[in-house]
């Protein structure tokens, strides 16, 4: 027994040194990754300033007609900075974006919507009006929609309950498979009844630490291009223009 103890102690020490070595290697790996991100961030910033100054010809014109509906997802920490949100909306209006959905999971922007609409000249609240209602004064302005997590799963469940009520009206609901009630178009219609916009954004810009849609309405997110823009605090006009320009060059197959 006694002769085993030094061996056990030694192997334990070796194990600890091994773990420490792995830990150091892991930290070193992450330092290298962070350096990579810093360097690529610097290059992106330089490119962005060059685009803002009009030095890169490619970005001087953007076919904005291709972008019918834009979504902007904001982390709740950045959504509190209303001044920055207003600045972003003004940039979007300058670029020619006509319709934007602002999303934050907690609905902070919804609470500030009156202030935001007042601070962005020519902005209107987007209603669920469909494609036909384009009044002349709206052509120059920007229509803003305010979205939160309550418009995601909760809204789908409310719409599901509408479909359930319709299904119950069939003569034998427990036997009926519901082929006339449960279709994508019926769900679309039910979502409109509960006050939801069902238009699918073409492009989504995510302002926050990570590329994640943070609970944007799943029903609307199907074919949306999702671009991570980084921090709202350090947002750059050139990066915004680049993201929109890149989108206009995208070709979708829709799985075909």
């Amino acid at each position, binding site marked *: 027994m006694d002769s085993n103890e030094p061996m056990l102690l030694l192997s334990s020490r070796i194990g600890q040194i091994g773990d420490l070595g792995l830990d150091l290697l892991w930290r070193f790996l992450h330092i290298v990754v962070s350096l990579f991100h810093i360097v690529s961030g610097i290059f992106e910033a330089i490119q962005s300033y060059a685009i803002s100054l009009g030095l890169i010809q490619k970005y001087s014109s953007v076919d904005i007609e291709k972008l019918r509906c834009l979504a902007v997802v904001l982390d*709740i920490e950045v959504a509190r900075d209303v001044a920055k949100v207003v600045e972003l909306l003004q940039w979007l209006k300058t670029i020619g974006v006509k319709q934007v959905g602002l999303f934050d*999971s907690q609905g902070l922007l919804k609470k500030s919507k009156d202030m935001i609409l007042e601070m962005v000249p020519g902005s209107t609240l987007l209603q669920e009006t469909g494609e036909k209602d384009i009044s002349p004064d709206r052509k120059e302005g920007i229509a803003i929609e305010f979205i939160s997590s309550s418009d995601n799963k909760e809204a789908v469940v409310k719409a*599901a309950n509408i479909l359930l009520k319709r299904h119950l009206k069939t003569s034998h609901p427990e036997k009926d498979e519901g082929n006339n009630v449960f279709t994508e178009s019926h769900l679309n219609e039910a979502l409109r009844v509960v006050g939801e916009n069902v238009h699918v954004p073409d492009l989504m810009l995510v302002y926050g630490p990570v590329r994640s849609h943070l*609970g944007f309405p*799943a029903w609307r997110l199907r074919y*949306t291009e999702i671009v991570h823009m980084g921090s709202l605090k350090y947002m750059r006009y050139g990066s915004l223009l680049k993201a929109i320009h890149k989108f206009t060059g995208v070709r979708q197959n829709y799985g075909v």
Partner: protein
Amino acid sequence: MREHVGKSSKLFNGFTSIMRRFIFKVLCVGPIPNHISFIMDGNRRFAKKHNLQGPDAGHRAGFVSVTYVLQYCQEIGVPYVTLYAFGIDNFKREPEEVKCMMDLMLEKIELTIDQAISGNLKDLKVIFAGDLNLLNERLKVAAQSLMELTEQNRGLVAVVIVAYSTSHEIVQAIRESCVRKCVDGDSPLVLEMSDVEECMYTSIVPDPDLVIRSGGIDRLSNFMTWQSSRSLLHTTAALWPELGLWHLVWAILKFQRMHDYLQKKKKQKLD
């Protein structure tokens, strides 16, 4: 000469295996995603890029990637992996291509069944999720057999998503939950979120922590948009058959960098 080449090749493979395991050991010092989803895009472009002949050539190359990715995830210790193999929109492709893809899936499932029977699957559990009624009978039966054969395995859970789209999943989940409500006379006739979610095709796995899309495309293409509210979405320019060890390691390193933030988001009031 051949023997010499064979020995060198074995040595090299042994060396790369040791190196790979060492890299994974370092990676595992940090948090590992509980569930990684893969959108396997780029097979057709790969075939075009390399002038491969045949409508399923790219997809065959893609299957090789699947085996490597599953092996790597198993070695790293990722508990759940989801593979988006075939979407409902893909049925709109040329009939010949769709048939080729279905035949290829059947071939690979039957191959995997043989491996399961001979005990070569290393405790892998395979589940097929999606609207399996849209598949042909033979494929459906084969998928069912593979699921039954691997049901008791307790290793990596590989969920193969076929005949799927989020919009279809949501509608079918609503339909199923409504029908269940009607049949169950005891509970009140009001749907809760849990009623809908438990009827979803992907209710068998937790929400993904990391969604990796190959092929350089920046969208989810109607894949798990309901389940990915708190997921890190990662796109790699590599086409699916080109996806390798370093692409996976890079994605996991990115996940580790953002882990604290993603955990914070999960703890906040969810949708």
